[in-house]
């Protein structure tokens, strides 16, 4: 996908242009949206439930309220999530020292909404520590220094295939645009060839925006989350669909979901449930 974006950039020479236009789209059937990403961080955990909206409806997604939501661990512990403010944010309060996700365990999500029951499950895989975060001067083509390039160092586990989601922040603001979404297999980009290596350069340095480098004194924070193979696939599909333009676009297709309806004739589900272990490091650019 990155290759395609790159080529498109080169094709700018051919006076290619992109314009926002208006298109008449019909409205699709409503679906229940599950946004459930839990970690081993101490303290409360939240799962969001909402309903799909027309593609050009730019309002806040309508919340799905009145659902009963539970997460059960493979050891039999049950965690209840409650939407106290009727905004579709179902929260497990926890204590500041309690963690929900434990590495190696599996978790099942059960949702009961408007008479239908939905379920999903996920496993917590181990995550390696972020060993260090380094900065080197960013030299642009004209030879001038312009800010810093950050790299984080972590080493993939040997033997099994491991999947990671890397979230990164500038002064505590998450890089949240679709092209900044960074996932990795075995610390590499798209093939399992680097098993057991230190994360490769495109991942290590994948936490930078070339057009807007880190500046002296800015805080850079990196979080590495272990994810399941399915979740890695989900993020790949989602990123493809969110940035699917240009000469080499793939045929648009709906992103997979791991939520299934087990009973009732309510609306069909969409969205994702994932449990992760998390490691983190932050440093000041210098």
């Amino acid at each position, binding site marked *: 996908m990155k290759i395609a974006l790159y080529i498109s950039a080169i094709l700018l020479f051919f006076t290619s242009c992109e314009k926002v236009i208006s298109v008449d789209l019909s409205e699709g059937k409503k679906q229940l949206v599950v946004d459930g990403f839990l970690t081993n961080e101490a303290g409360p955990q939240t799962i969001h439930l909402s309903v799909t909206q027309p593609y050009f409806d730019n309002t806040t997604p309508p919340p799905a309220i009145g659902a009963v939501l539970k997460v059960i661990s493979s050891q039999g512990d049950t965690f209840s999530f409650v939407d106290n403010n009727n905004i579709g944010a179902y929260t497990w309060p926890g204590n500041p020292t309690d963690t929900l996700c434990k590495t190696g365990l599996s978790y099942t999500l059960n949702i009961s909404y408007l008479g239908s029951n939905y379920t999903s499950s996920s496993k917590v895989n181990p995550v390696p520590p972020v060993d260090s975060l380094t900065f080197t001067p960013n030299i642009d083509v004209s030879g001038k220094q312009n800010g810093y390039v950050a790299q984080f160092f972590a080493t993939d586990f040997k033997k099994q295939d491991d999947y990671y989601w890397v979230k990164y922040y500038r002064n505590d603001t998450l890089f949240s645009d679709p092209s900044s979404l960074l996932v990795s297999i075995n610390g590499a980009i798209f093939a399992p060839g680097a098993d057991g290596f230190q994360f490769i350069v495109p991942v290590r340095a994948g936490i930078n925006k070339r057009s807007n480098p880190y500046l002296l004194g800015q805080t850079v924070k990196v979080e590495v989350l272990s994810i399941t193979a399915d979740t890695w696939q989900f993020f790949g599909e989602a990123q493809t669909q969110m940035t699917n333009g240009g000469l080499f676009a*793939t*045929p648009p*297709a709906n992103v997979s979901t791991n939520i299934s309806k087990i009973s009732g004739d309510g609306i069909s589900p969409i969205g994702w449930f994932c449990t992760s272990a998390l490691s983190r490091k932050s440093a000041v650019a210098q």
Partner: protein
Amino acid sequence: MRKTLLSFFLLSTLFSFAQEKFTVSGYVRSPEDGEEIIGASIQVQETGASITTNDYGFFSISLPKGSYTLIFSISGFADAEQKVELMQDIKLKVDMQRKATKVEEIKITVKRKTDNVKKIDMSTIQLDIKAIQKMPALLGEPDVIRSIQTLPGVSTVGEGATGFNVRGGNIDQNLILLDEAPVFNSSHLFGFFSVFNPDAVKSVKLVKGGISSQYGGRLSSLLDVRMKDGNKKKFQASGGLGLIFSRLAIEGPIIKNKASFIVAARRSYIDVLAKPFLPTSLKDAKFYFYDLTAKANWEINEKNKIYLSAYMGRDVFGTSAFGFNWGNATTTLRWNHLFNEKMFMNMTTYYSNYDYRLDAGATDANGFHWNSNIINYAVKPEVTYYLNTKNTLKFGLQSTLHNIKPGTATFSSSGQSSTITLADKYALESGLYLENEQKIGTKLIVNYGLRYSGYLFLGPGKSYNYGDTTAGIAKPLEGTTDHKNGDLITSYFNPEPRLSVKYDINDKSSIKASYNRMAQYIHLLSNTAASTPLDMWTISTNNIKPQLADQAAMGYFRNFGEKHVIEVSAEVYYKWMQNQLDYIKNASLLLNEKFEGDLLGGNGRSYGLELYAKKSEGRFTGWASYTLSRSERKVASINQSNWYPTRYDKTHNFNLILAYALTKRIDVAANFVYSTGVPSTFPNSRYVVQGYIIPNTENDARNNFRVTPYHRLDLSVTLKPKVKENRKFYGEWVFSVYNVYARENAFTIYFQADPNDATKTQAIRYTIIGTAIPSVSYNFNF
């Protein structure tokens, strides 16, 4: 079935004992440069019998003792006449003069039919390279593939896309031959230019249906490009200076009238010109291409002639941190041999290598390098036997060894490195064919043939066994088997019957019909709107079945005008295709050992009406084409397993190409193109996960909308020097404007979150060329 067909062949060719007959045979050439003329018609005035020169300019016809007048004709050349007293076998060398642009008197007044009515070939268009060079072109550079795209039945997914689609076929279903060797990627700079250097091209023929049994291995078309042999009389240089690249070709005799050569080269320099306009982050970008075409031929004696041709070209893209490049190299050695005046043989052997590589990371300690190749070795003996006036037999064999090297990838990180090598694959693809072109009475010609193709997937290698699963998700790998050198892993055999019929209604019109079955054993894996240079070719395996197509076509052909200068045709076709490849969602095709698990198989169908009118003589020349068509696929799990239109389905497709000789020194030309917008998939709802707005389409529909129609006008003016006797140096200026009224044609319409406000979604129209592009180029020869 096969036996009866064979005995029919034999029977029909045996009853040929009548009065004493002699053979007149020979070559047709252009006297200025000694080039043989392909596809020239020879008509016997006294009997009405006719024949066509083959790909090497050779013809042979047997007639009863007597005196005859032979009339030679082909568009772009003045007719020639030759009287013969046939008392014994006669060998001829016939010269045909190329026409200047101005009208020339046609000296021969006989009512001759033009090629489209006379020849049995249907769904076939032969383009004169001079006609291609007259069309207004992008950046002033005439291009073979872009001119092919103006013909009826040919479409493309959009501007700048690699390749072309014929009658609803995918881009990998075109057999593209450059002097008999296959070209795997016909494009430079994605699809803006093609690998064929017009300075070195002699003829271009596109066959969309009724394909002769001589050709096989692709479903949808044959694009037969023949290179010039090189001037046999004198040294000559030609070339051009353009905005985007420059060309130079040198040709001349090695031994006068016996042996000659041509060498033609091109190099682009857009990267240099574009540098000031690129953003800082792309300042060190490289993107260029070059190609070199070379050929030599030697007429050893009257019976033997050899040709050696080679092509080498490469495209390079990238920056110091990331780049890729790809290229084709082919070498062909051909030997023409005349066993006698009735039996012509051509033996071709070729080597072809297509490779591509991807490099990321500036240093060896940290990087990723990948390269991949497809190598082919082939031998093709082909014999034409001009048995008698009524029958011309063709038979031959073709055998190709495919060696696919899917690639070696090297990862390095902080000095550690690992290499993934996907095992090589080998296969032997062979075809055996026999066909007869038979004249029945004076009005009917039938060409019937059978090609029998066989495919052996051979060791050494590895085969993969997949389990069954719900269509649409990756098939689980259940095990692999290692095979030793020479082991037969899987084989496929396909009889491919071919049939063409022509019936003359009168001297102005004819009807034609054809049927062909084609089998294809090599496939391009491409899951993007336009094919990328990194798309992988794969051969049929135990998991990938050969693609099959059955096509039937019918057409009406007619000439208009006093001298039959306007050729008009109308054709309808229906094509049914099996084992078409498609892909599961998010299929992983690059460097994935288990890619076969991500493939889906389905059926395709296409049908349409094609109208074509062409005027190739006079001050005013050009053609108009209109296609009404549908191209669809049905693949389990895609579009809820219902039929859906392909990415290149265009209901209406209209092209108008005109050239006018304004004065002796000024030519003007115009192109106009209109086509229905291509289908596309549009979402109709959205949802949010982890802050990301994800689009969603009800029922997982595929290609449920169409983008806006495509239309464009191009104009050009060519200024030629004063006509002078004995002028040695000839130079012309070409001024052109591409996309004159700056239409912003949609390549795609896609949907995304507003980059400035991630909570808002928007539709974006992506245009490849959205402005008028003026250009100037200078062409010369001396």
